[in-house]
């Protein structure tokens, strides 16, 4: 990520495929792990940890959606519904059967993967906008089914209170404790996505995205890999929904409506399609930037407006600034934050001798 190599000296495939090709990459990774696992939780106030927590959950969902949209080139506007499938599966297992999170979490993911694969079946015949409408239908159908099936939704309120996750008898409930819980799964999700993208499966996804007929001709089973892509992507979404459930202590389908699907699409488009780092940056950007803008604007606007007017001014201006920033980032670099980061890196690679 940060390395400045002086040439290519690789002599084996293993070296070429390594996740960390240079010692400096390993050191950078160690520094990042140290930062997130030790420095941040010890130095930040709970409030700032809570913001990072929200971003960590979003990272898992964005990675999943990017696997489908960015790598495989299929579109889904129903990802929020897959999240609710995961959330309700885990909530029901946790409440009715008293199961711990290390069972409910993969179970929620698997159930979402199953439903996702079924929803993905139309992708075998249709593409693009048509597929978008098919997945939109899935979003609405899943919402309706949850809303009208008390056995799933737990009653008229369609919300199920879930106990906090416990680890060796300790309840994880403060933002600091939940931070480590979420960090672990977000890190796992990133690692899995990085490796998946470099594997046979990931390569097949990219081949389908670039030209599905060509992919079929070189021997890729398109049906299998398209459905696999939907399943993997929905698995991530389901896990994201389970994490939300444990983080909030409640599963509620109103938290996973169509607007959330659009938010996640925005994350991966801003971050960069078909890139793991882009998903992470996009999720962090969309989750944190509105908050940062507000923290900047509050003291500034406080100079001009009274306390009562302040909140109205900040609330509306914040949206304008947020929208303007998204547009300008995309104008500067249509391929997203990931590409922007690569440009910056390439610029500094030969700095200060830039020619």
């Amino acid at each position, binding site marked *: 990520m940060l390395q400045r190599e002086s040439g290519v000296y690789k002599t084996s495939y293993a070296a070429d495929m390594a996740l960390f090709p240079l010692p400096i990459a390993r050191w950078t990774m160690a520094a990042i792990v140290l930062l997130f696992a030790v420095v941040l939780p010890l130095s930040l*106030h*709970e*409030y700032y940890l*809570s*913001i990072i927590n*929200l971003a960590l959950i*979003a990272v898992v969902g964005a990675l999943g959606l990017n696997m489908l949209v960015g790598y495989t080139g299929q579109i889904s506007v129903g990802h929020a519904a897959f999240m609710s499938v995961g959330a309700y599966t885990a909530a029901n297992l946790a409440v009715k059967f008293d199961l711990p999170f290390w069972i409910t979490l993969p179970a929620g993911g698997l159930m979402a993967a199953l439903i996702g694969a079924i929803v993905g079946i139309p992708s075998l015949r249709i593409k693009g906008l048509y597929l978008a409408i098919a997945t939109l239908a899935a979003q609405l159908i899943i919402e309706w089914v949850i*809303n009208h099936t008390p056995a799933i939704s737990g009653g*008229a*309120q*369609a*919300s199920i*209170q879930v106990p*906090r996750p416990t680890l060796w008898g300790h309840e994880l*409930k403060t*933002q600091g404790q939940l931070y480590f819980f979420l960090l672990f799964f977000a890190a796992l999700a990133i690692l899995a996505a990085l490796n998946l993208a470099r594997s046979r499966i990931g390569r097949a996804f990219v081949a389908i995205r670039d030209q599905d007929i060509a992919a079929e001709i070189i021997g890729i089973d398109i049906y299998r890999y398209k459905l696999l892509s939907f399943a993997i992507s929905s698995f991530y979404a389901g896990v994201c929904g389970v994490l939300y459930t444990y*983080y*909030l*202590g*409640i599963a*509620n389908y*109103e*938290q996973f409506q169509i*607007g*959330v699907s659009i938010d996640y699409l925005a994350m991966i488009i801003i971050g960069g399609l078909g890139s793991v780092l882009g998903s992470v940056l996009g999720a962090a950007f969309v*989750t944190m930037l*509105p*908050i*940062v803008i*507000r*923290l*900047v604007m*509050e*003291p*500034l606007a406080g100079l001009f407006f*009274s*306390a*009562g007017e302040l*909140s*109205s001014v*900040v*609330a*509306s201006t*914040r*949206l304008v600034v947020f929208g303007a920033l998204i547009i300008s980032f995309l104008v*500067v670099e249509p391929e997203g934050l990931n590409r*922007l980061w690569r*440009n*910056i890196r390439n*610029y500094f690679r030969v700095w200060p001798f*830039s020619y």
Partner: protein
Amino acid sequence: MSKLKLWLGAAAAVALLALPGGNPSAQEKELVFGLHCDRTGATQTVGVFLCPGYHDYISLVNSKGGVEGYKIRVVEIDNEYKVPPAMEAHERFKMEGAVLTGLYGTPQTAALTKKLEEDKVLGTSPGFGTAAAADGRRFPYLFPIAASYWSQAAGSVAFVKKELGGNLNGKKIAYLYYDNPAGKEPLVIFEDLAKSEGFELRTFAVPAPGIEMGAQVLDITGRFKPDFVITHLFGRSPSVSIKELKGKGYPLSKVISFVWGASEADVKAAGGFELANGYNTIQFAGVGTDFPVIKDINEMFAAQGKAAPSQQEISVFYNRGVVIAALHVEAARNAVKAKGGARPTPEEVKRGMESIKGFTLGGLVPPMELTPEDHEGGGWVQVWTVKDGKLTKNGDWFQAYREVIRKHLAAETK
């Protein structure tokens, strides 16, 4: 690459600006209230009127010297009717040392219920969240402080009974509702009352986004032909329901709406007060500007050389903001008094909220009585009817079928 430098510079500038954007530490004689609001999201048509009402009342209290000598500082966060920003807002309020918080939105209320309990900070949820939250033993830190959907259902049936001559036996009532958890919640109460009062109940669900209900209304007016229609709709759909019922020739004086279809904005969007003449609405706060406290607010602004707030135009929502603020202030006042003037903790403010009684603010607030068991305050409602170009009071505050509500609350707790 100069463009890139520009961006790096801009990013650095933003980072620098954000750093001192920390928060002033709580002052000695200051109490912090946290307020969730939605000014830019799905329910912004409510928030832009309700939240200014809240702020204006707090300014009024501060201009008169505050609560027992404590100035109030409100930290408001716009959650856009989304859940993650509501979680962030809660943590922010906690960091700022808020003694109480005002929730906004049903999914947000659900998402924060557990957190409020763990952090021991109370949250008020008037018109949001589950009816079961009235039970203070089950939800110790959640305060609906207004009639729940169950109480509104009971209140509307009692009103219908009065309008139909005191006997519902053999009458037909249609319930037209938004097809979401909030819309379905009162069904259990209606079904129970239909049995005990002997009326025939039929329900008509309107799917989201609720702006297309021609089929349901035709079914009501053409086939079912009820004696009364009770509606429970949100957003744009109440105005559509007024228009459709009127268009099919159903008398609006035989229609009563729950609290989120009850504002001047709904009537105006439907075509004005003239058209909606007779439309009945259930309220958990007084309507109009004819209250001493609203006059005090306008005098305060006049003394500053400002006009009366334009948000008072939609007084239904504005006054709800005033009521929420007033109950927050009363809770804080009770807590400060109980401590002999010392700074109260959130826990003590919660006890202050649970001892509110006989506080009516000149008729704006219902005569509620909050106790550790009852966080709803008795489920008081008032009916206001469109008449002579405005909403006019139709009877005093009342509560109805409390034993039925209590039975269902007890069943929920099990």
